């Protein structure tokens, strides 16, 4: 393979600020092939603009080090005078704030022509002709060229900025946040323009943005930046459709877009302080699967299955994996066997909500219980956190029990009518003999508060029949939380509640799941409901999983006819549809 056109290695950009330095970019390496398009995505403060500016040598001397090789020539460490002839001619940048990128006292056309006349030394007429061509290419009219910056709209200035950046026909074009702050129509037009520019031969493109959709549409590769370091690099579509790094995953969950019906989820914790980043892996304070190693050592960017990942654990963990599960029951002693589950396979990843939907009798409840270990499978395995449930001995199994918990459909059935609330919630702790008695009480109270119930003495001494359905289901959830499980399987947790209670409990589950980074397997018949919380949907019919995939894909482009039927029949507030 030929050497990459632009090769950045171990780039650092530190700004001194009092005693500590702001470590904007802390060891970033990436390659850009000739004619390629790379998107660097990250949130504000991740350091992406600093990378762009470093590629033009715009930072104060002494703040940048590392290697920047363009077509074999080393650019890092060049003096200001050595940089000058390279700027704009070999590498150009369309900056983030097009609104303030232009000098307010000169006309747009003049400013676009300026590098042509001053930098390339072209005579005025030639420069003017070139400017006209550039304007046409980006969709600007002559009147825009004659205007002053304050007379142009944001979108027009963006395009003018692009024209100016292309004026000297650079080999590398960096575009910094072209779509931020624009209305959707301008944004779409701009993305189209960028794609046209990208397709021109001889031009390599670097798109810096927090707009993930734009990144997917314009770039073929994407590099995800967090706190000055790269965490995931790979093919754009694949990374953004199925992210492997916990941060990328969180980012996608938080990104508002038209395809996901599911509510936005933020990433817990706060953005790191660039002058004092966390030790070890910078994401570890906010990562739900962090282990001790993550706090101690920084992970390096390594190849994992076709991408580059910086994670000690190799990316998002698979919490639960089921292969070929089978279960049959004998009905009423007549010897006739009813196969409830026939050959079902599925995965649940770290921090994910998976919904298992199907009609009554589809086998979903059985499957749920199989996964938790409440029932023994006739065939197949269930692997949880790398351990085969069937293969574990008694001791380990007891430990395992703490990590997976179950929430049943009917709380009145799942909870003993004789126990008080306090005893109910404490029961798992008592069984597992966790901590001292006082600690167990404290833990129970915390979990009650987590589900929105205040552990006052009156409430704690209540019994099941004194509570409403919604309250009792919450108590059941609190009971499930008390052992700090990593995965909760909830079987129709809200189907017996009123609509308003349903909404509250479902939201509660989602909140807790997000906060604690738990996996949640939601078994339900209510497609409309799970659409609001699920990341992936599995459709089950007569014991088999007939379809599974990202929630938005399943809901909008179902592949199996059964799924389509289910979707059609799902309750909709549109009285024209669903004439069953």
């Amino acid at each position, binding site marked *: 393979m030929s050497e990459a056109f632009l090769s950045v290695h171990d780039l650092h950009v530190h700004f001194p600020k009092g005693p500590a330095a702001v470590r904007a970019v802390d060891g970033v390496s990436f390659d850009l092939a000739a004619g390629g398009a790379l998107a660097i995505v990250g949130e504000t403060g991740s350091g992406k603009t600093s990378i762009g500016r470093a590629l*033009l040598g*715009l930072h104060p001397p002494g703040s940048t080090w590392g290697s920047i090789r363009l077509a074999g020539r080393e650019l890092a460490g060049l003096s200001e005078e050595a940089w*000058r*002839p*390279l*700027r*704009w*001619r070999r590498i*150009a*940048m369309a*900056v983030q*704030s097009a609104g*303030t*990128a*232009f*000098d*307010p*006292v000169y006309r747009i056309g003049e400013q676009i022509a*300026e*590098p042509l006349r*001053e*930098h390339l030394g072209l005579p005025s007429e030639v420069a003017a002709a070139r400017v006209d061509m550039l304007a046409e290419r980006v969709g600007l009219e002559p009147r825009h060229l004659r205007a*002053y910056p*304050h*007379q142009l709209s944001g979108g027009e200035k963006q395009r003018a900025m692009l024209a*100016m950046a292309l004026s000297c026909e650079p080999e590398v074009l960096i575009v910094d946040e072209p779509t931020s702050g624009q209305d959707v129509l301008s944004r779409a037009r701009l993305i189209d323009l960028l794609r046209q520019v990208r397709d021109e031969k001889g031009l390599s493109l670097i798109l810096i943005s927090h707009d993930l959709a734009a990144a997917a549409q314009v770039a073929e590769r994407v590099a995800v930046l967090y706190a000055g370091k790269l965490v995931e690099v790979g093919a754009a579509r694949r990374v953004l459709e199925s992210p492997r790094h916990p941060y990328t995953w969180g980012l996608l969950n938080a990104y508002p877009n038209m395809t996901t019906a599911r509510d936005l989820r933020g990433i817990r914790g706060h953005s790191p302080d660039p002058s004092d980043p966390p030790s070890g892996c910078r994401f570890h304070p906010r990562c739900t699967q962090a282990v001790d190693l993550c706090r101690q050592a920084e992970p390096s960017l390594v190849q994992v299955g076709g991408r580059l990942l910086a994670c000690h654990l190799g990316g998002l963990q698979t919490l639960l994996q089921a292969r070929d599960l089978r279960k049959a029951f004998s009905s009423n002693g007549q010897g006739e066997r009813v196969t409830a589950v026939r050959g079902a396979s599925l995965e649940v990843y770290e921090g994910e909500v998976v919904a298992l939907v199907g009609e009554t009798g589809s086998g979903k409840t059985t499957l749920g219980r199989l996964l938790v270990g409440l029932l023994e499978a006739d065939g197949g395995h269930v692997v949880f956190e790398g351990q085969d449930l069937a293969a574990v001995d008694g001791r380990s199994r007891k430990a395992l029990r703490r990590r997976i918990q179950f929430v049943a459909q009917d709380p009145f059935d799942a909870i003993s009518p004789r126990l008080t609330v306090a005893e109910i919630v404490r029961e798992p702790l008592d069984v597992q003999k966790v901590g001292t008695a006082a600690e167990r009480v404290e833990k129970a109270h915390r979990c009650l508060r987590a589900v929105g119930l205040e552990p006052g003495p009156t409430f704690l001494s209540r019994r099941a029949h004194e509570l409403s359905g919604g309250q009792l289901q919450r108590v059941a959830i609190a009971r499930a939380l008390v052992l700090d499980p990593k995965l909760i399987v909830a079987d129709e947790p809200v189907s017996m509640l009123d609509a308003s209670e349903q909404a509250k409990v479902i939201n509660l589950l989602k909140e807790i799941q997000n906060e604690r980074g738990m996996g949640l397997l939601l078994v339900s018949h209510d497609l409309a409901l799970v659409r609001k919380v699920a990341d992936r949907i599995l459709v089950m019919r007569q014991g088999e999983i007939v379809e599974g995939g990202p929630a938005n894909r399943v809901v909008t482009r179902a592949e199996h006819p059964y799924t389509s039927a289910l979707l059609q029949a799902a309750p909709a507030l549109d009285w024209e549809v669903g004439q069953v």
Partner: protein
Amino acid sequence: MKSRISAYVVTLWIVLTLNFLLPRLLPGDPLSALLDPESSDYVFDAQVRAALEAYYGLDQPLLAQYGAYLKGIVTGDLGRSIQLNQPVGELIAAHLPWTLLLTGTALTLASLLGLLVGSQAAWKRGSTTDRLLTAASVVAGNAPVYFMGTMLLILLGAELGWLPLAGGRTPFASYSSPLAAAADVLAHLVMPALTLTLSLLGIQFLLVRNNMVGVLGEDFMLVARAKGLRQARLKWNHALRNALLPFVAHLAAHASLAITGAVFIETLFQYPGMGRLIFEAVGARDYPVIQGVFLAVALIVLTANLLADWLNTRLDPRLAEEVGR
């Protein structure tokens, strides 16, 4: 622009009216006192007294006085000086050129130096030169102009004897050629102009420097640098060009300051300008002269304001738009 002109006309009218009303409204009726044999301000010279009576017309109704006053201004009749027994108009015409020479020179020098040195200091902000110049400017801009003038007078005039101590030119001199005349005027101009320049420079340097520092931090400066432009182009065509805008906006105020300073300097150096004229008039309670000079100065300042406004709209395309509306 039209609205600005009308605003200025209004201000001019207010100035005229103020000039007219003030002496007539004040307690003690200073004008009548001039004609009252009992008062200490009584003017003894009959000719002058007659001229005063005619000019002020105190026995007439107020409105008639006002009309006569306005007519006088238009025809150039500003009354007669009590002390010098000359038409005020003539006096002003004789003294005005000297003041214009002084303030014009000082303002031009201070502006040019302020722009050049201020932009350099901003370019090298934080350097020792920048900090020294800034501190020096604060002192120069705040020190009373007559104190600085006094120091210069003593140092260059008295101690070193390089420059004449007073006046616009050597009294009773006759010149061999216009060049010699000009040289003499110039020699007398140096210290007053130098003093005023230093005082104005203090303020203008800071203005240019601080504005320029602000401009240098703007995004478009970074883009200009990224475009691979030469340092000179960045400094002059982009940075200074933008810093010029607030500078011009303040020019009118600085012109006003220059005149204020000129009053002190002319008094100190006995320079035959309008400042000196009004100073001596005040001492002699020569009201017509005081009023006349006030009017002339107000007119100059208003014109300067108007010019600065016009210049501003030419320089800043954002303003030109508003005007067109």
